[in-house]
C-alpha cells in the first residue's frame, strides 16, 4: 500500500462517520467568526433554539467593516450604519452565546486569518473553518482549513461537525531557490498564472519542495492564502521545525507537558515519501520573477517585464473574450508593458500580506525614499493590533509615514472596500491583496496584485517597476 498524503492523514483523523455514498461527517476542532458571515448563522441558531456544541472551539473578531482611521468613540461611532450594525451584532451574538471576541479597540483584534495563527488558535493537525474563503491560510501550519458558507457556520456552531466529501490530492512542487527580490506572493501568483483559477478545483493543494521548506511560516501563509485563487479550498504545507517554533508560546497554544505531547504528534504531519497525489505540478523556483496582475482574474498575471496579451492572438474564443473584457475594464491596451502601467493608489495590507514580515519587507524598500507625486493615496494597514504594535516598536510606521504612506489601524480595509477605504473608479492600484475582480476594491477600481516589496517600489516610481532595481 502506498503512503498517505498530509491531507489524507488530516482527513482520516477527523472522520466521525462515513456514509456509503462518500459523504462523511467531519469533526471541526476550531472555528473563527467575523461580523459578515456570522449574523445569519446566529439568527438560525436562535430561530431553531439551538446552542453552540462547544463554545471554546470558537473565536471571533471583527475585520471586514472596521474603520482603519482613528475612531475615538469605538464601535458605536462607526459612520456607515450598516457596518456599524454588523460589528455591533457580532458583539451581541458572541456575548449572548458566550464566545470570546476580540472587538474593536482590543489589541488582539485584526483580520481573522492573521489573528488565528497569531493567537495559537490555529494548531497543526486541527480542522479549522471560517466563513471566509481565505481560510486556507491556516494550512500553512499543517491544519486542514477551509472557507465555508454561513449555513455551514451555523452547522459547525450547532454540531461541531461538517458534512463533506473528501477532495482529491494535488501537489504543487516548487524546487530550486528563489532569486533575491522574489517573494512568496510572486510564487503563488506564478502558480496561479500557470494552473489557472480553476486548476485546483476539487483538490486539496499541498505545497512542497525546496522553496516552501526554505520559506518562513508567514510566507507559507501568503501562499496558502491564495490557494483558493487557484481553485483549491484547501492549501497545505507539511509541519517542520519552523512550524513548531512558530506555534510555541502563543496564547492558545498548549503548554508544558501537553506541549511536548502535541509536538510529538505534530511531527507526523507531512506527506509520506511514497504518498500518491492525483495531480502534480512542478515549477522551477529559480525561474520565478516578480509578478504583477494586469486583468480581472488572478490568473491574468505576468512577470514584471511582461507585455499585456493581445486577445486577437488568443485561439480560444472564451479566453479571448475574457481578455477583451479585462482590458476594457482595466483601461489597458494589448501590447503595453507592465512597467508602463501608472500606479495612483497603493494598498499594503489584507490577510495575504499584512503580517510583520510583509511590513518589514515593504519598509525596507521605502526607507529613505518618497512616494511619487503621481500616487494619490498610499496606505499601509497592519493585519492585527499586535502586528501594528510590533511594527511600531520597530519604527516601521515612521518609515511608511516619512515616505508618504498613511499608517492605519488593522482591518480588511481596501482589500474589499466594505469600510470607507475604497479605490475610486478608473484608478490603478498596486495592491498586496488577493483578488483583482471587477469592483473588488471599489466600483470601477483597477487592481494589480503584487508583493509588498513590489507595491512599495511602485509607490516610489508611480508605475510598476522591478523591485530588484530598488533593493
Amino acid at each position, binding site marked *: 500500500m502506498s503512503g498517505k498524503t498530509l491531507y489524507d492523514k488530516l482527513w482520516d483523523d477527523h472522520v*466521525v*462517520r462515513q456514509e456509503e*455514498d462518500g*459523504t462523511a*461527517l467531519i*469533526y471541526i*476542532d476550531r472555528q473563527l467568526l467575523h461580523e*459578515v*458571515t456570522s*449574523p*445569519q448563522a446566529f*439568527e*438560525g441558531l436562535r430561530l*431553531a433554539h*439551538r446552542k453552540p*456544541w*462547544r463554545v471554546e472551539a470558537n473565536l471571533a473578531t471583527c475585520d471586514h*467593516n472596521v474603520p482603519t482611521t482613528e475612531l475615538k468613540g469605538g464601535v458605536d461611532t462607526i459612520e456607515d450604519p*450598516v*457596518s456599524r*450594525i*454588523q460589528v455591533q451584532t457580532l458583539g451581541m451574538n458572541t456575548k449572548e452565546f458566550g464566545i470570546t471576541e476580540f472587538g474593536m479597540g482590543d489589541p488582539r483584534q485584526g483580520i481573522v486569518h492573521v489573528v488565528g495563527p497569531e493567537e495559537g488558535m490555529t*494548531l497543526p493537525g*486541527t480542522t479549522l473553518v471560517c*466563513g*471566509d*474563503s481565505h481560510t486556507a491560510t491556516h494550512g500553512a501550519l499543517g491544519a486542514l482549513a477551509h*472557507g*465555508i*458558507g454561513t*449555513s*455551514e457556520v451555523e*452547522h459547525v456552531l*450547532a*454540531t*461541531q*461537525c461538517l*458534512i463533506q*466529501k473528501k477532495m482529491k490530492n494535488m501537489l504543487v512542487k516548487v524546487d530550486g531557490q528563489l532569486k533575491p527580490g522574489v517573494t512568496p506572493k510572486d510564487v503563488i501568483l506564478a502558480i496561479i498564472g500557470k494552473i489557472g*483559477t*480553476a486548476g485546483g*478545483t*476539487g483538490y486539496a493543494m499541498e505545497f512542497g519542495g525546496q522553496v516552501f521548506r526554505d520559506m518562513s511560516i508567514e510566507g507559507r501563509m501568503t501562499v496558502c492564502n491564495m490557494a483558493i485563487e487557484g481553485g483549491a*479550498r484547501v492549501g497545505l504545507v507539511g509541519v517542520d521545525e519552523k512550524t513548531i517554533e512558530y506555534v510555541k508560546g502563543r496564547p*492558545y497554544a*498548549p*503548554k508544558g507537558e*501537553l506541549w511536548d*505531547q*502535541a509536538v510529538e504528534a505534530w511531527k507526523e504531519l507531512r506527506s509520506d515519501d511514497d504518498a500518491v497525489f492525483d495531480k502534480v505540478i512542478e515549477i522551477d523556483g529559480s525561474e520565478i520573477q516578480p509578478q504583477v496582475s494586469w486583468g480581472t*482574474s488572478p490568473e491574468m498575471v505576468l512577470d514584471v517585464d511582461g507585455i499585456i496579451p493581445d486577445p486577437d492572438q488568443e485561439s480560444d474564443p*472564451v479566453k479571448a*473574450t*475574457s481578455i477583451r473584457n479585462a482590458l476594457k475594464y482595466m483601461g489597458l491596451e494589448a501590447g503595453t508593458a507592465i512597467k508602463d502601467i501608472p500606479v495612483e493608489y497603493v494598498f499594503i495590507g489584507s490577510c495575504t500580506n499584512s503580517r510583520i514580515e510583509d511590513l518589514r519587507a515593504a519598509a525596507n524598500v521605502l526607507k529613505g525614499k518618497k512616494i511619487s507625486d503621481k500616487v494619490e493615496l498610499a496606505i499601509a494597514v497592519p493585519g492585527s493590533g499586535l502586528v501594528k504594535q510590533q511594527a511600531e516598536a520597530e519604527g516601521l510606521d515612521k518609515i511608511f509615514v516619512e515616505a508618504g504612506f498613511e499608517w492605519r489601524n488593522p482591518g480588511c480595509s481596501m482589500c474589499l472596500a*466594505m469600510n470607507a477605504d475604497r479605490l475610486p473608479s478608473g484608478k490603478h492600484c498596486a495592491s498586496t491583496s488577493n483578488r483583482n*475582480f*471587477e*469592483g*473588488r476594491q471599489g*466600483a470601477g477600481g483597477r487592481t494589480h496584485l503584487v508583493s509588498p516589496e513590489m507595491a512599495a517600489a511602485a509607490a516610489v516610481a508611480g508605475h510598476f517597476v522591478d523591485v530588484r532595481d530598488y533593493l
Partner: protein
Amino acid sequence: MDKFVKMTAIVAPMDRANVDTDAIIPKQFLKSIKRTGFGPNLFDEWRYEDVGQPDADNSKRPLRKDFVLNQPRYQGAKILLARENFGCGSSREHAPWALKDYGFDVIIAPSFADIFFNNSFKNGILPIILDEKVVDELFNETFANEGYQLTIDLAEQKIIKPNGDAIEFDVDSFRKHCLLNGLDDIGLTLQHSEEIKAYEENRKATKPWLYAN
C-alpha cells in the same frame, strides 16, 4: 427548507464564463444581517445603470436594457443557464441567497466553483452540471426561442426539453434526498449526536492539548 418539486420554468441565459460572487451580489449588500431580500440586487452592477446602495429604492433605479434579466422575454425565469466556473470567488452565501430570492431554483452550467456549488444545495437551489456541448445547445435553443422553458425533474434526474427530449444529469444522492424532502442539514447531523460525543471523548483522551483552553 421547502421541498424541491418537479418544475417547468423559463430559462435565462447568462452568457459569460467565470461569473464570480462579487458580480452575483456586490459587496455593499453583504452588510445585511438577514437571510432574505437580496433578490433586487442580484447582478446589481450589470443590471442597473447606477451604482447600487443598500438603502436605495431599487424600483426607481435606471436599468441596463441589454442585460439579460432586464429583457421582457426572460421575466419570471427560474432556471439560470450559465457558463463554466459559475460562482467563483468569495464564499459568500449571499450569492445563492440572492439567486434564490430573485426566483432561481436551478442553475445549469458546465462547471461550478466548489463553495458556491455546496452553498446552492444548502439553500434549496439545484446546480446541474452538464457537458459543455449540451450547455451550448441549450444556450442556442434559449436564444432562438422566446419563452423557452425547461422541465426539471429531480426525482428522475432529468431535464425535459419543450420537444420532449430528456437530458439526464448526475446529482449526489444525499443532496438529492435533502432537496426532495426539504431537510435541514443540522437536524440530520444531530441525529448522530451520540457518535459525535463518542468521537469527541476519544479525541480528548488522545489529543488532550486541543481541549486545554
